[in-house]
């Protein structure tokens, strides 16, 4: 098993800088997730690590060695693609055996069947071994594709959105399965996705990527609770964080055109010394706004239920105060109705403050 290190890695395609001097260290046995929107450079990064692309600048290190000049075949990494690539007329067993038959490895027949049996056990596909792959369901195919990657025990697994073609239900199941597989195999996973929930639920650490640049690296807890900038704050968490234009006047926060006025906490006061009378962006996650029918003591604002999204487990209320619309989470037991007046109680202690000019966290 191995660690992965990227040193000022740069890759351009014509005028477009896909990866912009990226530095990244993935520890041995880590489940590391690269998260970002379409076009951020996620897949390019994986392809650089695999050796499918050559960098313009910088180095890729696997297991302490620079592998820039090594061909993909000898880098000893396994790539799992979004579109499972199986041999359709082979059985599952033949598909799993195939990577082991390579001349590079020279394994004996009993060794091969032992390895295949082990992989089949880990992935719960023992009963599928003699089936042809065209007769498998989507989830089964993806398991076999993962099986083909793990059967030859590579140093590093590179996974490019392996779950995005599965239906929602199966994706959830596979999330838990992959997290557990990672633990059982004890190998390094480098996983790419645009889905923040996959990143949050599976990753040991997550790097948020946008336009070829890494914006933040941290544990799921860190990037959720301490987002470094507005982009990360918006990208992580569902429903999306509320962002308000705000100004500071001494120890009060003014939202919009005085639509809401909050007193702020002492510990925030010292941080905000330099921002007196200046504009900033205030972020509050919907779960940090409590909804009630009665006015509460502090930071409780009268608002109208503009519309409502019933998610079953919770209601996402879209509340309106003058021209400001924001989201809050309410229990379905509260049985709020559209058009009704409620109070939004803002837990200002849990707010995130960002500089308007730089979009960076204050």
């Amino acid at each position, binding site marked *: 098993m191995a660690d992965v290190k990227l040193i000022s890695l740069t890759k351009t395609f014509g005028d477009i800088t896909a990866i912009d001097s990226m530095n990244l260290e993935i520890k041995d046995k880590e489940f590391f997730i690269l998260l970002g*929107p*379409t076009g951020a450079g996620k897949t390019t990064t994986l392809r650089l690590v695999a050796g499918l692309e050559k960098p313009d600048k910088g180095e890729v290190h696997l297991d302490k060695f620079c592998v820039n000049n090594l061909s993909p075949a000898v880098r000893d990494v396994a790539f799992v693609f979004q579109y499972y690539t199986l041999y359709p007329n082979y059985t599952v067993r033949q598909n799993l055996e195939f990577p082991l038959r390579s001349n590079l490895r020279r394994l004996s027949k009993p060794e091969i069947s032992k390895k295949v049996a082990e992989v089949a056990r880990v992935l719960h596909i023992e009963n599928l071994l003699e089936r042809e792959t065209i007769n498998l369901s989507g989830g089964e195919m993806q398991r076999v594709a993962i099986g083909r990657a793990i059967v030859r025990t590579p140093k590093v697994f590179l996974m490019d959105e392996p779950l995005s073609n599965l*239906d*929602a*239900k199966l994706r*959830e*199941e596979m*999330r*838990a399965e992959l*997290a*557990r597989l990672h*633990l059982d195999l004890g190998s390094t996973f480098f996983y790419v996705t*645009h*889905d*923040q*929930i996959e990143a*949050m*639920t*599976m990753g040991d650490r997550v790097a948020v990527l946008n336009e070829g640049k890494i914006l933040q690296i941290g544990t*799921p*807890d860190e990037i*959720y*609770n301490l987002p470094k900038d507005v982009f990360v704050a*918006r*990208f*992580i*968490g*569902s*429903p*999306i964080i509320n962002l308000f234009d705000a100004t500071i006047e001494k120890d009060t926060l003014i939202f919009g055109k005085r639509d809401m006025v909050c007193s702020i906490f002492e510990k925030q006061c010292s941080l905000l010394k330099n921002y007196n009378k200046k504009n900033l962006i205030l972020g509050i*996650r919907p*779960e940090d706004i409590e909804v009630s029918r009665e006015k509460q003591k502090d930071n409780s604002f009268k608002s109208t239920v*503009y*519309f409502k*999204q*019933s*998610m*079953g*487990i919770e209601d*996402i209320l*879209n509340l309106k105060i003058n021209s400001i*619309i924001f*989201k809050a*989470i309410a229990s*379905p037991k509260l049985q709020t109705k*559209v058009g009704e007046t409620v109070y939004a109680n803002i837990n200002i202690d849990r707010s995130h403050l960002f500089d308007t000019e730089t979009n960076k966290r204050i």
Partner: protein
Amino acid sequence: MAEIVLKDIVKRFGDLIAVNNLSLNIKDKEFLVLLGPSGCGKTTTLRCISGLETPDEGKIFIDGEDVTIRRASRRDIAFVFQLYALYPHMTVYGNITYPLINQRYSKEKIKKEVDRVVEILKIKHILNKKPRELSGGDMQRVALGRAIVRRPKAFLLDEPIGTLDAKFREEMRTELKKLHVDIGATTVYVTHDQVDAMSMGDSIAIMNFGVLQQVGTPNEIYTNPKNLFVANFIGSPGMNFINCNPAMDSSGKLVLRPLLIDTFIPIPDRIQKIILDKKEEEKELVLGVRPEDVMLSMKKGENYIETKVFVVETAGSYNIIDIKLGSDIVRVRTLPTIAPKIGETVYIGVDMKRISIFNKKDGNSIM
């Protein structure tokens, strides 16, 4: 504005029955979501409403008028397939006014309608741009603008956000819902994604194999699923299912015995009565429990089952703890502060007030 009524619609393609005897009332100003897996007949249903397909049997009424065989262009309905379908050589203004010019609107009327759309969608600043200069979100808004500008009676949307990134989809859900609230036109929306359905629909119609499974508000469908298919399809993380046999305990009370683990699950009197009244006590049953209705404890409590933690998933505002029960995974949704270690022994119990029970054989709820 329009009320749409489908009566006993059947649509066949060769031997395949794509839509099987579907009846549905879509109220004026309602946002109805047709939800189901691929191949369930949801898109065929939408195409029948639009007039792109003619049903083999049954009738379609819009505002009380039988339109079953009326041409698509004369039904006054806007069909949005893919929000990105814009004319690349025209400006945003040109794209939006195109349907009006086509219908020979006067200049003043065109201006008035465009102003209205620009205000609703907040796209004034991009009116003179070409589609290729726009961000994905703006392109979507323009395509919507083109649909709403001629004030159709109803909107039909077929997975308009299906190909987008997860984050972007979430933003568009809120925008589409807000748009519906603001203009209040009857909307039929087709999707395979239950989150789309829950977060936007006033009501949801779930289909499978061409057959309507259940119609109801998001909350009704979530709390009282009519069968295993609906229960399984709605909710994320999904409902937990435990196969059980009813049995009598030593005091003669009816309990549930999970098939794979040696324990008893006591059930409330109300549900015991339902099982006995419906003569289900001899049959194999499926206990359905949503992840938020499973309680997790580090200490053994009454009626709690001892298990081990399989995986812990952190989602920020909550955690999902995956537990192995026999060979099944049971998911528990907890506060983000509760994070046991993998392999740790924990105890789980069930909030019996909020369970569902299904007959294993036909899949129907017995509640």
